[in-house]
Structure formats: C-alpha cells, structure tokens
C-alpha cells in the first residue's frame, strides 16, 4: 500500500521534472550567492558555510511544500486518498517519503559540490552530507503538517513558511552545529545524535498531525 502511494508520487514527480529541477537550482543559486557577495576570504567563508548551506536547504524545501497536497486537492484525488481503507497516517507517510526522495535527496547529493565553494575540507563535506541526510526528513515531515494546515488557503505558500520555518530551528541548530564542530576539529557526533532524535520525534508525531489537519482542511 505504502509502496503504491510512493510509486504514484514518484511517477507524478518524474512527469513534472521541471518542478524538481527548480528546487535544486534555487538551492545551488542561493548557496553560490554568498561566496560571490563576500569575496575570496576563505576563513570567513568557512565559518559561515554550515549556516548558509543549511538555511538554503530549508528555503529550497519550502518551494516544494505547497505542492505536497495542493495538486491532489485540485483534481479531487486527495478526497479519494482520504477514503482509502487504510489509516490516513500511512498515506501521509507515503507522500512524505516520496517528497523527501524527490525534493530533499537531490539537495543532499548536490551539497558537497556547492560546499566546495566555501573551501570546506573533504571530511567536513562528508559530515555535511550526513547531517543533511539525517535532518532533511525532518523538513519533509514537519513541512507536511504546515502544507496540510494551509491547504486551500489563499497565499498558502507564504503562510507555510511562517508556520513551519520556526519549527525547523532545532534541525538547523543541530545540523549546522554538526558541520561547524567538524570544521573546528571537534566531534560532530553529539549534534548528529540530537538531530537524529529530533527526526525520530517528528516521524512519530507529524504523520498523525498531518492526517488530522487534512481531515479538517477537506471538511
């Protein structure tokens, strides 16, 4: 069941490849603007890199969130998903998983490349990828709650950012913290553990919250 909903969303995303590419290009451009604006001061660039890359990842994932349920609402398939004989949180989990694969994994893969612009050493690039890999599911999971709550509202896109970005703060702190620790030669493990714990908590709670929000939005 979960397999079918993931496969459905992946197929749909593949048929609208331009949407994925716009998210990735947004991420690349935002991250690249900083070295261009600041100039070749490697020390400064190295110290701002974790924060800049993580903030860019948060903003890029905002772009795709408003589409998470809106397209399905428009053509009526969201109603049908609510009427399938399985717990709604499973449907939500499938859609969130597909969103993570489509919108977040490309960012994780491209991050080491854009990180090179900040003169980050190789080992730190690895930690960057690990921190994004652990942290980006949080973005999809918490983002889905915001997407469900603002479904069908005018200006929903801006509203999602206002609702969801504050909730991303723990992920930002621990994610960027792990990379920063690695740059100054400390162990990134504590940050990564806390980030992982935050990911697990959001995995447990947000599908239920999203399911409840979807029911309310469709009444």
């Amino acid at each position: 069941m979960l397999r079918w909903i993931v496969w459905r969303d992946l197929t749909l995303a593949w048929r609208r490849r331009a949407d994925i590419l716009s998210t990735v290009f947004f991420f690349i451009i935002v991250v690249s603007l900083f070295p261009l604006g600041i100039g070749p001061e490697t020390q400064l660039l190295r110290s701002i890199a974790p924060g800049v890359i993580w903030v860019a990842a948060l903003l890029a994932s905002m772009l795709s969130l408003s589409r998470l349920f809106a397209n399905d609402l428009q053509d009526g398939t969201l109603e049908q998903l609510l009427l399938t004989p399985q717990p709604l949180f499973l449907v939500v989990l499938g859609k969130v998983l597909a969103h993570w694969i489509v919108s977040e994994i490309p960012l994780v893969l491209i991050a080491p490349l854009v990180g090179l612009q900040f003169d980050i050493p190789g080992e730190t690039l690895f930690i960057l990828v690990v921190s994004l890999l652990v942290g980006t599911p949080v973005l999809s999971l918490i983002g889905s709650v915001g997407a469900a709550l603002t479904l069908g509202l005018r200006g929903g896109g801006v509203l999602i950012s206002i609702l969801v970005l504050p909730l991303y703060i723990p992920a930002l702190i621990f994610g960027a913290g792990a990379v920063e620790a690695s740059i100054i030669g400390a162990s990134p493990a504590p940050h990564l553990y806390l980030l992982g714990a935050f990911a697990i908590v959001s995995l447990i709670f947000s599908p239920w919250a999203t399911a409840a929000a979807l029911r309310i939005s469709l009444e």
Partner: protein
Amino acid sequence: MAESERPGATKVDLSLVISYICGSVVAPTLLEVKKLECVRGDRRLFSGLDFSLPAGTYLQVTGPNGSGKTSLLRILCGLLAPAEGEIKWEGENIRSLAEDYFTSVTYLGHRHNVKDELSAIENLRISNALNGIFISKELALEVITRIGLAGRESLPARLLSEGQRRRVALARLLTCGTKLWLLDEVLSSLDKGAVALIRSLIEEHLAGGGIAIVATHQDLSVATGSSQRLELAT
C-alpha cells in the same frame, strides 16, 4: 461465575438468529440515516433527514443548486461530519467503523479524481491499488475498452476531453466491488452512450445487492431494484 455468564451468551446468539431470519425474509437494511443535520457556514442546509435503504435500492437526490446534495453525499461517505444525527452501515455507526467503512463505499465527486499526468490505465490501476484491489494491465485494458476509451488508454489524461476524463473516473465502478456507490453529478459532460453505460452499470450493481445514491438533475430511469427519490429544499 460460569452460570451467570451463560444466559448472556445465549441472548447474543438468539438476537443473531433473529436478525438472520428477518434478513432472509425481507432485504436487510444496509444504510440507515437518522435525524441528519448539515450546517455549512451559518446556513442550515437540511435537518431531521431520515431514511433507510435496503440492498438493491437506487436513491436519486435532487434539489436546486446549493440545497446540500454534495454535502449529503460527503457526509454519507464520511468526508464531512454531520452537525447532528448518525449514519449506520450494516447496523454500525460509520464513525466507529472508521477505515473499515471505506471498503464498502465508492464515492465519485464532481471533480474528476483523475491525475492529468497519468494515462487512463495508470489512473485506474493506481486508484484501485490504493483501495487494496490489484488489477493486471490486461484487466485494466479490458475495463478501459468497456468504458469506451480503447485506443486512448496510454495517453496522458490531460490530453483527453472532459467527458473522456469523466469516463476514466467512472471506470473505477467496474472494478471497485463495493456495496455503496455515492455518485455526485457524474452525468455532467457525458454523451448519450456514456449515460446508457452508467445506467447499465448501476442496474448490474443493484441486481447484485448494492446501493446507488446519485445526486443528479437528469432522470436516469433505472429499471432494476427499488427506486427512491429524495428532494432537498433550500
């Protein structure tokens, strides 16, 4: 201890037997609606709505625009919570049945429920799979042919016309195998041939002991089963 439990157990058995006997004499009531009230915004659309439908019933819901036809169907399928009243399916409240109720219901809204990026076959197979019914490509092709879209089965749905997309949505009725059909304005933008096809589908469904509740302005004149009419006033 054991003696005090025994009378209780026989009571349960008796009531089961009674309901079984009654059920075999007259068609059992599948859907029961009691004192249903619907409020949208600050308007009361209808209140005190009572009806019970035995198997094999066709119920046509009519009424002027905004009289609550769509809201009634959405309440019956559980998408919308009624302001008051209860709905029972096979004697159990649909709120307590939760997801199990959805195995007995197919709701087709006035939106198409068709993904523009997917072809007719993909739409049919995915919407069935999400409802726990796996159909092969061959069967899907057969269904698409019966619904009158042969030769267009692999086109993305966005290239199909309004009526053709409606047909793709209706193709689900052939494979869903549910007892209760809730169809909301499904006849709009369909040609005569498609309307006749829907009529024969509903007749088959009623003959098989199903219930069809259709919100429409057009008379479908279904021949089999018992036909009822519900007129909602503003």
